[in-house]
């Protein structure tokens, strides 16, 4: 079995109001020097697969077809 972590983040230049709100909340808690916060999503996926290259290709296809909206989001796949 292969385990993977997929991280989906907003592309540069796409406004992230949620990230901004979190940024302000962190400043409000007294954490100084918080430059910018961007919110993303994480997915831990288990695959019944032993071929790492095949797994990686499948995971990328999953991102392109469902997990990320590539109009506004980037993704990265890491086998863990």
């Amino acid at each position: 079995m292969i385990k993977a972590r997929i991280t989906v983040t907003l592309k540069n230049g796409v406004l992230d109001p949620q990230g901004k709100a979190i940024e302000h909340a962190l400043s409000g808690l007294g954490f100084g020097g918080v430059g910018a916060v961007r919110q993303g999503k994480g997915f831990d996926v288990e695959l019944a697969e032993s071929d790492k290259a095949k797994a990686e290709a499948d995971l990328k296809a999953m991102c392109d077809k469902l997990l990320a909206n590539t109009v506004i989001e980037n993704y990265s796949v890491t086998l863990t």
Partner: protein
Amino acid sequence: MKSAVVLLPGLNRDRDMIAALTKISGTPPVTVWQTDTEIPDVDLIAIPGGFSFGDYLRCGAIAARMPVMRAVAEKAAAGVTVIGVCNGFQILVEAGLLPGALMRNTSLKFVCRQVKLEITNANTMFTRRYQPGQIIRSPVAHHDGNYFADADTLARLEGEGQVVFRYAEGTNPNGSINDIAGIVNERGNVLGLMPHPENLIEAAHGGTDGRGLFESALGIAA
């Protein structure tokens, strides 16, 4: 005129859409369920608003991958008229039938109010009963209506007259780029819009501003 309404778990404006289509076309629409792989022969397919699949992952993302949406895509490619309202717009965008994306409102708040819309293009099959530049009223109710498209896509939409409705007179409720409220595809037979014209079609609603959209799309004389 025959119409169909797409039903998905979590939609909640389906009855409003069915009532509007019934009252305006004189014939109740057929309904198609998420697992249906075929849509009967109709002139118009409507995807109503709501929160399909609880807005999990992204608004409209799961619904857009259901079998019924493959059938909608086939019909759209064959030239059938398709309207997606609110969540229906989000589903059409996620399904790739319309460009761009709908993101969280910049206020981070759910907005439920009346806005003003400018008919940016009165030369579409959805707006021919309106005058160019006409301002109409429409209710909105959404959390993720902030339309976004990259610069190239935006330039194409604006240049080709695909921006059909724009929030007017400072009533943009969600921060959408260029005040975009509704767009059509390149061919002009698929419309997505965040506002709810189906909720302003008879006197009891307090106005009939939304009626012209359905009369236009259904080819009914005003």
